């Protein structure tokens, strides 16, 4: 086996395994946000590893450049897409898992503009415990 073939195998098989782990996470985890964390991290890393395997396997300049461009594009766009779906799901009132311990976004969106407000800018709502209050309680 040539070294490039060994490197292709080393990149291809963990890439496929990571994508399978991401799909298992998408089916097994409890709520939308947890599933999204599985698909946006594990599956993206799997795609990038498999594209790297393609870039190594086809050793010529043109194909490898396209593969590297696709890798960079995936690494740039996957967090953006996951953030947009997560924000849309949160604004649509998608419920959190019952075991969720903290929700730092609770009460942080302005009602009339849907902009995030920092704690200094807003009047604290005594019914909603915010993150700094929790830290103070823990000591």
């Amino acid at each position, binding site marked *: 086996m040539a070294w490039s073939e060994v490197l292709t195998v080393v990149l291809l098989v963990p890439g496929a395994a990571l994508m399978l782990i991401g799909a298992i996470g998408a089916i097994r985890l409890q709520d939308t946000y947890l599933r999204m964390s599985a698909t946006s991290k594990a*599956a993206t890393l799997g795609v990038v590893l498999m594209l790297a395997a393609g870039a190594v396997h086809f050793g010529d300049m043109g194909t490898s450049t396209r593969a590297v461009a696709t890798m960079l594009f995936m690494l740039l766009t996957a967090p953006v897409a996951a953030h947009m779906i997560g924000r849309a799901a949160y604004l649509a009132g998608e419920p959190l898992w019952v075991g969720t311990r903290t929700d730092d976004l609770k009460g942080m969106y302005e009602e009339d503009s849907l902009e995030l407000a920092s704690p200094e800018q807003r009047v604290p709502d005594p019914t909603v415990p915010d993150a700094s209050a929790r830290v103070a309680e823990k000591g």
Partner: protein
Amino acid sequence: MTLETLIRLGVLPMLCLAIVLAFVRLLRGPQLPDRVVALDLLTSLLLGLIVSLAIYDEKPIMMDVALVLALVSFIGTIGFARYLEIRAWPGPKS
């Protein structure tokens, strides 16, 4: 064991199982954001499938397909996310 055998017996079954699991999530939902996440995952899995088939068949032209699919899937996900957000919150109340 050649690279072709490894892809045929190792990589492609893993990816096909992952695609089946993503389809189950796509059908079960329960809400629209879950389905959008499942579609995003499906396009990623399809990208991996295309790359492994390109290596299996020695067809470097398939890498172009992967690049175009990555572009289209990003635009599609952004469009779905915008639609979800607009549906959840159509505009200012005043």
